[in-house]
């Protein structure tokens, strides 16, 4: 009997498979699989005010991956609480709300409002540009990452998982910084900054010029970073970045992740999260792993 359960920051997930922020929409994704099969859903980034997102083109394909510059379009926290949350609550799966902002104040405002609801956890997207500091992302520097963690922790009644950006020199340092200020967990990686130029039209393909790279192309970087962060902090780690199969999920677990998120794979195969869960269970049966901790301890 395989035990797929994992507890993160006091919240027990039935299995370690979650949906990555920005790749899941309850009504649309739920047509393809039963949302109850997931360990948790991680929502699209929620901001204090509605965000329109970037002009198109927002999507570009790259070899074994894709670039996105969607720009975090979302209807804002009030609409999320009123329209999205009640629908998500009709399912048994755990709800993690992803939070975005342009200033620490905005993050805190969202965290405060969401803390009054019955969501299970918050995932804080610190890849957003800090306008006050000239646009460098909150997660780019250990000092800023620590500060935003500290401030949100004051306002949040829910466990907070800091979603780290890989566009840094030393991700272990960032992880240690957020742990020291009370983060209940970290998730990594967010997208890698990338670009595609159309040489026939002589211009960048994305309206925003640059965008976030995701998909199989980033997996080696993500696995490496999970490996490094696992050895730097004690708090739980959610691993993501190019997971397409159950074996990929096992790879992240073996690198030290407690749970995984499935993102780009679901864009390509709408049933991916549930398929990957089944494949992971099959992998565990094949090798006789009875629980996830055994996979995490298996690395020689």
């Amino acid at each position, binding site marked *: 009997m395989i035990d797929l359960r994992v507890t993160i920051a006091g919240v027990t997930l039935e299995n370690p498979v979650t949906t990555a922020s920005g790749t899941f929409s309850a009504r649309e994704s739920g047509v393809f699989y039963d949302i109850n099969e997931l360990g948790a859903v991680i929502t699209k980034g929620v901001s204090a005010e509605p965000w329109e997102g970037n002009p198109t083109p927002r999507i570009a394909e790259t070899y074994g991956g894709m670039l996105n510059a969607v720009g975090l379009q979302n209807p804002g926290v009030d609409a999320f609480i009123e329209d999205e949350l009640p629908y998500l609550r009709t399912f048994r799966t755990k709800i993690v709300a992803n939070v975005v902002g342009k200033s620490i104040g905005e993050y805190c405002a969202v965290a405060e409002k969401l803390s009054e609801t019955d969501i299970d956890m918050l995932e804080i997207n610190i890849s957003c540009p800090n306008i006050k500091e000239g646009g460098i992302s909150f997660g780019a520097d250990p000092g800023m990452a620590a500060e935003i963690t500290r401030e949100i922790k004051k306002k949040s009644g829910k466990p907070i998982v800091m979603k780290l950006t890989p566009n840094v020199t030393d991700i272990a340092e960032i992880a240690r910084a957020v742990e020291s200020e009370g983060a209940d967990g970290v998730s990594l990686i967010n997208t890698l900054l990338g670009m595609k130029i159309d040489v026939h039209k002589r211009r960048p393909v994305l309206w925003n010029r640059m965008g976030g790279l995701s998909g199989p192309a980033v997996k080696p970087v993500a696995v490496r970073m999970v490996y490094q962060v696992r050895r730097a902090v004690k708090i739980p780690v959610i691993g993501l970045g190019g997971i397409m199969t159950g074996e990929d999920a096992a790879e992240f677990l073996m690198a030290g992740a407690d749970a995984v998120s499935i993102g780009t794979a679901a864009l390509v195969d*709408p*049933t991916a999260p549930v398929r990957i869960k089944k494949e992971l269970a099959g992998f565990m049966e094949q090798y006789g792993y009875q629980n996830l901790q055994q996979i995490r301890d298996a690395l020689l």
Partner: protein
Amino acid sequence: MQGTIGSGAYKTGAAGSAGTGSGINKSCIMEAEITGNRPIARDIYRLVMQCGDAGGMRTAFSASNPGQFINVYLRDKSMLLPRPVSICLADEERVTLVYRVVGKGTKELSAYKEGESLKISAPLGKGYDIGAVLRTLSDGVSDGLQSIERADLNTAGHAGKTVALVAGGLGVPPMLLLAKTIRSLLGNGARPRSGSRTDNGSRTDNGSRLNDGAGPERIRLISASGFQEEPFLIEELKEFCDEIHIATDSGTAGFHGNVLEMMETEGIKADYYLSCGPKPMLKALAEHCGRIKKPLQVSLEERMGCGYGACVGCACRIREKAESREISEEKKSAAGGETAGGEAIIRRKKVCTDGPVFFGDEVDWDD
């Protein structure tokens, strides 16, 4: 916007609603057998697939609506994203796509052979609202954004009215299913009779009149299509349309110029316009229809990620008119998007799920 664009409401006898949202579909990626994949013009291919018995494919495609598209999943996994392609024709037996080879993905697709299988999605998106067309023509009133349930197909009020199918380039293929569907909904069958009296009895060089008035319920279908140089699917359009007008940028066939110029020069007029094609063409047509106060539905296009509404990559700008909004005042200010002149809110909608078809007067063209 809820329910305003056809998602099957107007199809009589359809088993359940078309498109997504009707329950858990475990076989969302289906395998079809390719029965043909041949060029029909330079760089333009027609791919025909057989519906298999597995996965609900027959049901999915028998309920497909004109204006919907499918995701095509390539074999080469280095090309991650599905390719969205408009449905040219579809029924429970077979599906036809017409596509242009423009990049790596379509180049690979063009090499797939008869007998090989192709992975595709069920029909996606909201197609043309034919119910709105029929209702508008019957009432003589433009529906705009009113919520529509079902067309009253027994109304003969639309007799003698004209619908123009205006298309450019790869916008032409979806017109085929659209023309066929409009014809079949009115129970008149496909082929117009030849040899009947026409208004002025003449055949022009370009606009070929095939028939005029084969029955009291009959809507006249005018096809106005523009191509870069080589027309395609014209013979197929002739099966369902009363008039065929062709324009080419190069002048190698038909009118020398673009579709809008042709419509102006040849005095092509209709009571309702349905369109698909490049953005500049749609924008010019929307302006034209705005000036002559005729209703229009357009099929938009954007680079897509997932094609089913999860990633919000394919955003377009849609104006919500003041009189059609049901939301409260408080919600209006929180709804997001800018106000334009204090009367309408512009929202970012998803081309893949809220569209691809929208009413022409609700699209905000400047981005």
